[in-house]
Structure formats: C-alpha cells, structure tokens
C-alpha cells in the first residue's frame, strides 16, 4: 500500500513527472515495453521520429501516463513482424493519453483499451498499409468497457471490421476523425452517451454504425448523437469475416442504426452511398437473452443533406424494391419492425417512436423481429413524424481530460 500511496503523491505533484524518451532502433520492443512498464503516474513517454520495428504486442497498465510521438507520419509503431498478442498496443489503465503517432499492420486490433476511465486517442493514424484485406486486423482504435472516451483527429484505414470501434462504453466523443477503406468506418456498439461529430467516413462498406447486440455485459445502447459528419461514398465490397455482425452490413450503407434507443442523426452530409443513406433496423438473428431488446426505439433522423444515394442497393431484395419505386431508394429506410417475442415469453411492441423528417422514407413494414425480407411490403412515405423526440444530452468529458488531450 505504501508504494501505491507514493504513486498518488507523484500524480498530485506534476513537478516530479518525468519524460521518458524512447527512440526507434535495435531492441525497440524491449526498450519501449520496459518504458511502458516503468512509467509512473504523471509521466510522459516520448516516442522519437522514425519506425519502431515491433515483434510483439505492447501494453500499458500505469494510470495517468501520456504516450506521445512526433506525429502520425513521423512516429510509426510497425507491427508487420508481430509474433504474438491480439493488439498492437493495449491500454488497461485510467487517464491515459495516446497522441501523435501511427500504428501500422497490427496482426489483430490496432490500439485497444479495456476498462479504462479517461482514455484519449488524439491525432493518431492506424493503418493496414496494403489496403482493405480480409487478413487485416479487426479494429483500428478499440476502446471497450471504458468510460470517458475521447477519439479526436484519428485516421484509420483498412480495418477488416470497424476502423473506429467503441464497444460497451459510456460517455464517448468521436470527432474530427476520418475512417476510410474499412468494413465499418465508425461503429458505436452497446454504448451509452456518445457524440459522434465532424468526422469523415468514406470508402468503407458502411459509414457510421450504431449497434446493440445480445449476451453481453453491457447492452441497451442509448443516448447517441451523430451530427455534422461527412458520410460519403461508402461503397466498398464487404471484406469482413462471416459470422461477425458487420459482415451483414450491405455495401453502400451510409448510416445504420440497429436496435438501440434514443439515437439522433442530424445535420450530416450523406452522399453517394449506393444503398441506404440511413438504415434503421432491428437485430434480426435469433437470440435467447431475455434482457435484450432487438428493436430500434426513439430514433430521429432529421435535417440531414442527402444526395446521390440509393442507386445500387446491395441488401437482399434491394434492387427489386428500388426498381419498383422508380429505380432509386429514398434516403432513409426503416424495416418497419415494431414487435418481437421475448425468448420464452410474450410478444412485445416497441415503446417510443421513429421520427424521420428527411423525406421521403422507405418503410419495409416487416412488423415482427425475424421476418424475412421477402415479407416486406415496401411503402414510401413523405415523412414519419410522431411527437418530436427529446435530443440526448451533450456529452461533456472532464475538463482535465480535454485540456490534456489538447495541450501541445
């Protein structure tokens, strides 16, 4: 306990904080991993310019540490020769800032944080440099079971699942970032209170996804705002491994909301996506989790700018539906599923409405969770307006986290 108390004391007196410099070169793996282990709270690990050739995953388990490079083009953690571990860099401590470097060609995920409160990813690049491939790692930046998550000015390319993936987390901001050439550009999954704004998602299979899945420690995703994003030409063929939920995302999807409640999509530019500009759907697989709600509820899509979407729908039956209604899908599609059967229980109807004023809207009228696409009774409506929905609260991260992330 004595040692722990000492560490707290160092945290409280920044004057004692050290800067540990690590440069590329021989034995980079051991030198950098040693620095990550020996760091004390308050310390900054400065990564020099150049390419660090890394043979294994790296990990940081010390709270209140910053890892900073010379810039995402200048400092490169190169995992091309990685022999082990599921991530390039793993963070398992609170109040960690990762800033100004790149992670290339990690064998699994690029950068993961697990159970970290106050994790900031700032001005990073995570890339699989041989372009989109099924053998690339799954996620670029991957905070999971974390709180107070900041992803700012991050660029991710080539992830075989989601470029920016936030799972089972709370109080999240994803902003000023770019996801390109991934299966999913940005994915918020089983998470609470997320603001996703001023990002660019382009050239992915699907641009921005908001999902909720069963059988997980945190579910019931809610209170999510997507706004001022550029969701452009996400028409890449899906290259995810089958079985994963994103493998079911049709190429050409701009924004996709599956299950969840209280999701607001507004003030975005959603253009040139071959399928749906915005797709609102239920989770359609069978499930046994009695606590899970597969329906999207209280979803608002309003005030977005749409252009050039819907000419090449890739989902089952999409082309037929499009041709039946004039060749092009309307910008917003809802599967029209409003009921599901609780496993071993009764039929339940959705509480809360779907609000769409970005007309027109395509409603597939599938009614019940699990209904096959062939049961669709497509209907184009000008708008779908129930009572306006209350907008989720603005996500505000601790001032100290924001200040540190932005400090030069």
């Amino acid at each position, binding site marked *: 306990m004595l*040692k722990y108390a000492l560490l707290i004391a160092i945290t409280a007196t920044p004057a004692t904080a050290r800067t540990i410099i690590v440069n590329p070169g021989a034995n980079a793996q051991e030198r950098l*991993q*040693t620095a990550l282990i020996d760091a004390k709270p308050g310390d900054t690990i400065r990564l020099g310019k150049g390419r660090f050739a890394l043979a294994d995953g790296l*990990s940081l388990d010390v709270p209140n540490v910053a890892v900073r490079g010379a810039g995402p083009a200048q400092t490169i953690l190169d995992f091309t020769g990685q022999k082990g571990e599921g991530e390039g860099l793993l963070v398992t401590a609170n109040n960690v800032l990762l800033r100004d470097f790149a992670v290339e060609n990690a064998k699994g995920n690029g950068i993961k944080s*697990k159970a970290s409160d106050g994790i900031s990813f700032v001005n990073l690049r995570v890339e699989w440099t041989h372009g989109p491939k099924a053998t690339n790692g799954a996620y670029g930046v991957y905070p999971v079971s974390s709180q107070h998550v900041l992803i700012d000015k991050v660029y991710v390319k080539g992830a075989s*699942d989601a470029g920016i993936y936030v799972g089972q987390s709370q109080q999240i901001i994803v902003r000023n970032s770019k996801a390109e050439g991934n299966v999913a550009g940005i994915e918020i999954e089983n998470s609470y209170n997320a603001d996703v704004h001023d990002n660019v998602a382009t050239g992915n299979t699907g641009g921005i996804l908001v999902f909720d899945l069963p*059988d997980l*420690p945190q579910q019931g995703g809610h209170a999510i705002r997507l706004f001022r994003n550029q969701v452009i030409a996400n028409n890449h063929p899906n290259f995810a491994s089958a*079985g994963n939920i994103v493998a079911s995302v049709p190429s050409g999807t701009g924004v996709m909301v599956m299950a969840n409640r209280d999701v607001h999509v507004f003030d975005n530019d959603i253009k040139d996506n071959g399928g749906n500009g915005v797709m609102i759907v239920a989770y359609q697989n069978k499930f046994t989790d009695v606590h899970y709600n597969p329906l999207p509820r209280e979803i608002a899509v309003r005030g977005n700018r749409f252009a050039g979407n819907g000419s090449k729908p890739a989902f089952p039956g999409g082309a037929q539906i499009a041709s039946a209604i004039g060749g092009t899908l309307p910008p917003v599609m809802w599967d029209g599923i409003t009921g599901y059967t609780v496993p071993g229980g009764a039929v339940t109807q959705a509480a809360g409405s779907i609000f769409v004023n970005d007309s027109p809207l395509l409603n597939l009228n599938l009614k019940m969770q699990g209904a096959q696409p062939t049961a669709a009774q497509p209907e184009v409506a000008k708008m779908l307006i129930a009572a306006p929905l209350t907008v989720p609260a603005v996500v505000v991260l601790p001032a100290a986290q924001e200040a540190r992330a932005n400090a030069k």
Partner: protein
Amino acid sequence: MKRLISLPLLGVAAFSIGAAAPAPRVDGARLLADDPAPLLSAYHLFADDAAQLPSPGVTRYTLNTPLFSDYAEKFRAVWMPPGTAAAFTDKGVLDFPIGTTIIKTFAYPADFRAPDKAVRRIETRLLVRKAAGWVPISYVWNTAQTDAVLKRAGLRVPVSFIDAAGAARQIDYAVPNINQCKQCHLQGADVTPIGPTAANLNDGHQLAALASAGHLTGLPAVMPRLARWDDVAEPLPVRARAYLEVNCGHCHSPAGFASNSGLYLQHDEPDPAHQGIGKRPVAAGRGSGGLMFAIAPGDPDASILLHRMESNEPGVMMPQFGRTMSHAEGIVLVRAYIAGMKPK
C-alpha cells in the same frame, strides 16, 4: 505427454537431505520487499539452485488440469511464511496468507522420450502475496542454468526439443511481460493466482496432505473437484469443460480480461449462450474464420472456439499469448466434446 519429470527438477529428494548441511531458509522479507530481487537465488526458494531442490517449507503440488504452455514441463510449488496456512475456499484459489509465494518453473527436456535427462529450465514465475495484493515476478534462467535473472518486459527464447513422438520441434518461446502476467491473473481489480483452487488441487489426497502438514485449514468433508482433462475414465464434457476453464476461463469470465466477449468458459457456467453454444462472435474480427458460432453443437469444424485453438496466427489464435504452437491433444478433446453435442 508425461506430466511429471526428473526427480532433481521436482526436488522430491529435498525432504531427505536435511541432515548433512543446513539448508538455507526462504527469505520471506526479501520476497515482500518493494523491489523484486535481480536474481532468483536471492530468495533462497531452493536448497540447491543448480539442482532445484526446494528449500524447507517449499511444498510442490500438481493440478488435475494444467494450462497448456507449448508443452513446457512445469514445476509448481508454494511457500508460506512459517506458522501460517492457507484457508480452504470452495470457489476460486485458496485463501493464502500474506507472504505466500507461488513458484512455477517452465522447463524442456531435450527429448520428451527421456524426460528426466538434459532438462533445460527456461523461466521461473513467482506470485507473491503482499499486503496490497498478489504481485507477479518473472525470472529467466541463464545459459549455465545456475541462476535466473529478473525480466519485466518479456523475452523470446528459442527452444528446440524432440517431442514424445520423436519429432524435432522448434519454438520461439515467449516469456510474458509483467502486463501480460496481469492480463491472465486479473479478476476484477485484483491479481490472483489461477491454478491452486481446491477443485484443481483435489486429486484425492493432495488437499488432505497439505492439511496434515499444517499448510491448509478448514477442509470440509466434501470437497469440490475439477476433472483431469486427460483421464479417459471421466465423462468427456466434464473433461472438456475443465480444460476450457483452465486454458481459457481466466480471461473468459465475467471479471476477466475477455469479459466483454460474453463468452464465459468456467466449467460450471450455466447459460448455454455464455458457454458459447450457438453464440455469435462480438469482436472476433477475422478470428471468426468466417464461422457463425463460438460452438456449433455437433459441428466442431463450424465452431470458432476450436478454430482459434487450432490457429497459431496472432490475431486469430486463442489464447492470445502463452503458446506459439497448438495443443493437439487439447484440440482432440474439445473437438470430441463439440461433436458429441446435440445439433440445434
């Protein structure tokens, strides 16, 4: 593969040598010091470092079902400060007293067909129970095999051996770094040992022997027991689930590193979906291998769990570290377990 090897390594002879020269006492104060010793010998855990004879008070133990670590042979022992004892617990590891040190040496014989000869020790891992909790410390043996040196950042060690079938094997053995120690040993906020649970120690006599030697208190009449994974007399599902608990369950538990997967591989997990049966992947990425379910009952080749056990590719393989080769015998067991399930 044979579980127990060379007497010198295991130090069974230690208890009969006392008379000639007084064996050194374990240095409990050094074990509890803030900074770990640079050399393993500083703790005097062994009466004879070259021969690996345990010091007085160091008790070796075995587990019904051990973790697979690239076929390394393991020497397990525990030391508790004089006058203290562990308390029995029905679930989880025994409640060891402060100062307890759990010792695990990983070693390879040159030829597994002669497992007592030319045994090379690779590393010795310690878990020391300090007042604030368990602390992992790793030591890597020197080439002369005279002492082991503290390693905190991990190390790759080339190892070659002849396996039990006579085939030459070469591996890039990975000594874990201290964060990796924690990844497996962390349950919730606390580092904890994994192996020495009452159930996994319960081979019919080991717990009673510990109790009669004064190392264990509170032994009940009926004790939990984890199956031996390789005892064909036991039911297949029981063996397979014991294997999965020991090899996967330290991460795949509600309080473990892989909690977010929703896949929980304790032998007594009641929920079929959490066991993996018909469970879709969450964040497996390419690790899914294009398969739909963790366990597809009746169809091992369609099961992600088995696919990831078979793979040796980082990003796909499970466990994520701790092995560089797949465990053929474990795969046979889990394959048979899944094949024997009734398809849905």
